[in-house]
């Protein structure tokens, strides 16, 4: 089975890696987009440092909104395990990604064993169009909406009404919500940066903060991308900064606008794109003249890529460490269907070994 290509021509992985290294070395402004496990991220950041690249997650906007909540304001958060065991009121804030629906279903089917209440009420902040996770036993989440208002405005109205203030348009089912909160010991708000604008995340934290004056409440962060959040964590310990960090000047600089890789590509600032996707590749149309190096789980060269190297899927083809939103921490996963395909980390290290550097510290 072919695993590496230069253009459309099949070649040895070693040769493809050397070619990728040469492209990176001669690039003026290389950018990386990551969708990979922890060790893939660690290897990519070490390579970015050697070649002066900027890096971001493949779905950079959503991860960046979640990062910004922490870098700009901070937050009150709770672990998923505590949510399951303690939350007597669960509030789903906006639309959650499909990957989190199973956990929400679990919350609907169980009762909090560490709460005196032994039952769980479920609300959904959104509009009539917000699609809620399907709950079992015909349960539905009580909708808290504010007409046509967006999520931020709805949360603002909710917060104002909770403080006893007048609002131009009242939130639907507010009385039920107020009653549930008054009786609750530990309400938890489920949030993600995926469909939620940054301001809404701040407004939500404002509401949680208000609730904590007299009683307890917190927010459960269900990331827009598990790989994205894992990469953000690894980047933070390795460089001190989350994603959207660049080494253009030889040392790490964090700038969520300047190193927005999608923006750099669209603006024509980048001249080489290294795309690392450990999960199944979504073929992307190449719309510009910028050279592409694609590391992806693929059996054929990625259209338009200068170099394609096949890699395995983390946790499927090889053992991996990934962020788990189910535990709220990093988790080791065994290969579900071990294969010969190399990991992203292995291939990136191979590329890095071809980049000349005095650098003494292999990652």
């Amino acid at each position: 089975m072919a695993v590496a290509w230069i253009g459309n021509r099949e070649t040895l992985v070693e040769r493809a890696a050397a070619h990728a290294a040469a492209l990176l070395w001669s690039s003026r402004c290389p950018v990386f987009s990551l969708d990979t496990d922890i060790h893939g991220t660690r290897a990519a950041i070490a390579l970015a440092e050697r070649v002066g690249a900027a890096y971001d997650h493949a779905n950079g906007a959503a991860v960046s909104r979640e990062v910004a909540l922490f870098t700009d304001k901070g937050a009150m958060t709770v672990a998923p395990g505590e949510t399951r065991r303690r939350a007597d009121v669960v509030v789903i804030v906006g639309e959650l990604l499909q990957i989190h629906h199973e956990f929400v279903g679990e919350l609907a089917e169980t009762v909090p064993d560490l709460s005196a209440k032994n039952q769980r009420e479920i609300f959904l902040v959104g509009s009539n169009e917000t699609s809620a996770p399907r709950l079992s036993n015909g349960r539905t989440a009580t909708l808290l909406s504010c007409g046509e208002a967006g999520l931020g405005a709805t949360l603002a109205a909710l917060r104002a009404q909770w403080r006893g203030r007048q609002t131009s348009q009242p939130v639907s089912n507010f009385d039920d919500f107020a009653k549930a909160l008054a009786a609750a010991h530990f309400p938890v708000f489920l949030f993600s940066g995926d469909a939620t604008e940054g301001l809404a995340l701040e407004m939500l934290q404002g509401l949680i903060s208000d609730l904590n004056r007299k009683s307890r409440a917190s927010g459960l962060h269900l990331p827009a991308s598990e790989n994205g959040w894992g990469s953000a964590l690894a980047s933070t310990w390795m460089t001190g900064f989350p994603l959207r960090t660049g080494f253009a000047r030889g040392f790490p600089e964090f700038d969520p606008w300047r190193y927005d890789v999608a923006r750099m590509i669209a603006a024509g600032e980048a001249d080489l794109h290294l795309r690392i996707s450990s999960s199944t590749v979504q073929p992307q149309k190449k719309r510009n003249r910028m050279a592409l190096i694609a590391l992806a789980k693929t059996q054929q060269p990625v259209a338009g890529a200068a170099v394609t190297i096949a890699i395995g899927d983390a946790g499927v083809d090889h053992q991996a460490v990934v962020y788990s939103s189910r535990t709220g921490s990093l988790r080791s996963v065994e290969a579900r269907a071990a294969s010969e395909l190399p990991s992203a980390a292995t291939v990136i290290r191979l590329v890095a070994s071809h980049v000349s550097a005095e650098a003494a510290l292999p990652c």
Partner: protein
Amino acid sequence: MLTKIAGGDIIDPVNGRLGKGDLWISDDKIVAAPAAGAADRTFDAAGCIVMAGAIDIHSHIGGGNVNTARLLLPEQHAAHQARPATTPLSNAGWSTFQTGCLYAKMGFTTVVEPAMSPGAALHTHLELADIPIIDKATLAILGNDDFLLSMIRDDASSQMIEDYVAWTVASTRALGVKVINAGAAAAFKENVRTFSLDDVVPSYGVSSRKIVKTLQAAVASLGVPHPLHVHCNNLGSPGSADTAAATIAAAEGLPLHLAHLQFYGYGTEGKRRFSSAAARLAELVNATPEVTIDIGQVMFGQTVTVSSDVMRQFSARGSAQPKKSVIHDGDGNGGGIVPYRYGKDFYGTMQWAIGLELFLLIDDPWRVFFTTDHPNGAPFTAYPALFELLMSREARTEMMAGLPKSAMALSTLAAVDREYTFEEIAVMTRAAPAKLLGLTDRGHLGAGAIADIAVYRREDNIAKMLGQAAYVFKDGDLVVQDGEITHYRWGKALRLNPSPDKAMLRRLVDYHQQRYGLSLDWFNFPDSAIAREQPFGEVACRT
């Protein structure tokens, strides 16, 4: 390879070796001077002092809360960024990479991360594995977790409790156990806002004292070399000296370590009702031989407080500077991140003075440990300046001249003459930590010890002397020369490995399945997950 460090002033209190002489290294170990044969390489240590590599027993260098602090404060790094980049990630500010380099430059070769949440053990060890040069270790946090609190409530046998502690230590690859504001994080989840030693966790009916005593006994009985590491209740509040005193009294003959005592050295005298109780606590420590403490010295400037004492951090949110914080309710403790600036005002001065008083009034350097509770009292990069304050009365007097008199009047610091000697520094930062942690292979320069060695060129400026080592060897590798890193290598995380009890393992499998809906596999990890050769080094329990 045979290496000779020639003609230095050797300071090795453990082996009673003090004075001019040579030190020999064969590969990664210290050896006696060979009867014959020449060194393959010789380092001239004339005019230098030669000590074992330093050991830091309490410094928050990695794991979930530390990383959240980095995430919260990208601006903290800005100050580090202006230097030329000559080494990988060398300008990364407060990163794992910088942590190893900065410690090594000061001659530190082993550092303990004292607050590993068991659920974040893999994350913690991945961070520690990215800290170059030095060896690391962790303490696993227990005492706010439902499993333990339920066992205590249900009068579980001490054997069962020991089995659980042993399983936690083994599965998280820890070197010891820490309890942080025992019971308070659990109580905070039930909306309790203050918590003292004899307060009771609602729903469990278990007091903080009972949790501490239970864990203290289990740790001792299991032969974990490091005594239970206690972060007391009421950290930072006026009058917390009473809590510390009560906790010292609760040691009752069994070893107990109290962390960052400075943060409990507060009385309620004076018109601000905030005063130094350091003299009182020092006297208690002096009179209680089973108790060891570390200081958690405050140094002036910007820092960030990172603590698994979630109740305390929640109440400190209002003092955040800059105005942002993270409060996390975790499976056991969780934690809080609150940035803070220690100013030369009344309160900052009191805290600074209280830490120094404790250092200087506790007589036995074997029982007082050198920490700033990095980064809570100050970043560890303040160590050289702190050494100078301990070793020079003149440096203290100079500093005090610029501080508010109203604060100094409530402290005895100005009247204290003591200056630490190099021998006492060697005890406090080398010999005693190795003994406290059960690390017989380091902290001294005797034959057979690993060659972790720090050589400092004598000069009047103590901060400069101890801040930039002339040579540092880690496992016999020369890693620092003239204060600069010359060689990168990867250290290990030191851990205990008690064999877990099978019945306890079955209970935990059931517990996780029932309560969390997850198999225990979600929380375990193989060594290979760290993706480094030999990420761990095993330390023996006492038998």
